[in-house]
């Protein structure tokens, strides 16, 4: 069976890889958007936190003997706590200044974190086994679907949609959206906005770490695994516009799929296609697909 001269299996295989990449784009750009909404800071260290999440899983397994499922819980909380510490000690001093300083600070942090991990573990990737419960796969007739990959797509969809639901449809999310619009007013109503900011940053960092844990069995665990990824995620964020949570999720998955398709039809462009789309979006709709035009 062929579509446009491409065997269906190859096409589906690349689409699956695209969906997997899209899951990570969505999780990471969601975290960036949540942080940006409240802190007005673009977290350049997001890729480093993603990398630390993966290393967290690796270390939990090899030093403490805690398996994947524990890592899924412990690693994001631990890395999120580091995020809280960073927000309290460093980022919170910069809120009165131009937002670019936040970008510069987190860029410095990314250099430090990636450098430290590279010194400790070397540049080459470390393997992390797929948990036994998710080994094997399903034969769907037209393609073979590994269980773990199906799990990653479903899990990241669930996490993304839950986050969306909490932010858009609960009281807590209401506070958050209100503080995004007007922090002074929300503070005047008796909500502890600084604490909310801190916890939001911690949550965004935790999301990145969660993505890292899920990525560990797919990609190799390496100190630079987040460095190039974060630049692609920045492009995803520019394309989607950070104004909408659902926008980040849809753009993340969508661009993953587009990238997968490009690998099938024109592999030379697969590394650049997202940047090319960014260029086109900037020309046609500079505020991004889901951004508010100003």
């Amino acid at each position, binding site marked *: 069976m062929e579509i446009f001269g491409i065997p269906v299996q190859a096409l589906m295989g690349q689409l699956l890889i695209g969906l997997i990449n899209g899951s990570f784009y969505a999780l990471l750009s969601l975290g960036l958007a949540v942080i*940006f*909404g409240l802190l*007005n*800071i*673009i977290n350049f260290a997001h890729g480093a936190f993603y990398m630390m999440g993966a290393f967290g899983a690796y270390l939990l397994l090899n030093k403490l003997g805690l398996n994947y499922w524990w890592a899924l819980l412990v690693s994001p909380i631990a890395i999120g706590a580091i995020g809280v510490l960073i927000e309290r000690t*460093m980022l919170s*001093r*910069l809120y009165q*200044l*131009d*937002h*670019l*300083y936040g*970008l*510069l*600070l987190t*860029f*410095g*942090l*990314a*250099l*430090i*974190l*990636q*450098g*430290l991990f*590279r*010194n400790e573990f070397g540049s080459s990737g470390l393997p992390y086994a797929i948990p036994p419960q998710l080994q094997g796969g399903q034969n769907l007739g037209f393609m073979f679907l590994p269980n773990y990959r199906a799990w990653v797509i479903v899990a990241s969809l669930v996490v993304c949609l839950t986050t969306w639901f909490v932010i858009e449809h609960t009281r807590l999310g209401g506070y958050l959206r209100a503080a*995004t*619009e007007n922090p002074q007013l929300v503070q005047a109503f008796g909500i502890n906005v600084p604490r909310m900011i801190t916890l939001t940053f911690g949550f965004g960092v935790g999301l990145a770490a969660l993505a890292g844990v899920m990525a560990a069995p797919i990609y190799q665990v390496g100190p630079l695994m987040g*460095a*190039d990824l974060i*630049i*692609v995620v*920045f*492009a995803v*964020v*520019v394309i989607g516009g*950070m*104004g909408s949570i659902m926008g980040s999720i849809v753009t993340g998955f969508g661009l993953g799929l587009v990238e997968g398709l490009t690998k099938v039809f024109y592999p*030379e462009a697969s*590394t*650049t296609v997202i*940047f*090319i789309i*960014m*260029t086109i979006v*900037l*020309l046609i709709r*500079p505020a991004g697909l889901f951004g*508010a035009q*100003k």
Partner: protein
Amino acid sequence: MASAVSSSSAATASTAPAHAPGRDVARTHLLVFALMLAVLVIAPLAGVYPVFMMKVMCFALFACAFNLLLGFGGLLSFGHAMFIGSAGYAAAHSAKVWGLTPELAVLFATACAGALGWVTGLLAIRRQGIYFAMITLALAQMVFFFSLQAPFTGGEDGIQAVPRGRLFGLIDLSQPIAMYAFVLVIFVVGFALIYRIVHSPFGQVLQAIRENEPRAISLGYDADKFKHRAFVLSAALSGLAGGTKAILFQLASLTDVHWGMSGEVVLMTLVGGMGTIFGPVVGAAVIVTMQNYLAELGSWVTVVQGVIFVICVLVFRRGIVGEIGHWLKKPL
């Protein structure tokens, strides 16, 4: 989530706008400039490794060009590696394959970087503040992948064994003294040009836009046009540095197109003092020196650079020259 609009104001906390210099300030600038020139001429005679000095000059010009955009235009580009890097390829290719003389190769590289800046600038200035940084970074990454795959860049190997050639077809640049003079002249011309741009009416409007864009627009200035021109100038001057560097080291490689290079030039400017005239030169000297002496520490260099970034942002936002200028109450 509308509060991103404030990001264009006060990009540099440290500097008063560089007015058309008063006689007093102009004299100070001239004095410091003479001092800098003296150091650059005497250092190799006093036994400082000339290649090191030439490397510092290339990066100093690069950082000055970058500072033109950040310090005086308030635009943080995180993609300036694409200009120094692509200019390096242009100079190396034209000198090696087409056999251009070094001065033509460097001019060609400058033009290429300027053209790239014209295109990418048009895209990047469509968004402000943080988005501007992300867009330039993404565009530079696209240039990186292009350089990795394009046939004439040599991929991972880069373009090696670029001939230094004969300046104007006459002077052999493989002689150390000739090469040193060549780099020195390019640096001084580039530096003087940037100084002139900053203190020209164009530079004044640029700084007005940095301080208060809506007001500059209400006064009738087309802010986007000014930003775009500043971007092109910054790109072309970065290309001048990149072309010279490629001829100097006889090499154009992926290192210069990588995002790490974009980060380095931000760091140099930050350390020296953004929005100052001489800051980027000092910053470049500090960072290149550090890289030389810490080379044996291997990947710790990245960590040290990161730490310097964090310290500069948290407690040392004026930078070295900005701090001295503040102390002397004169914009340097």
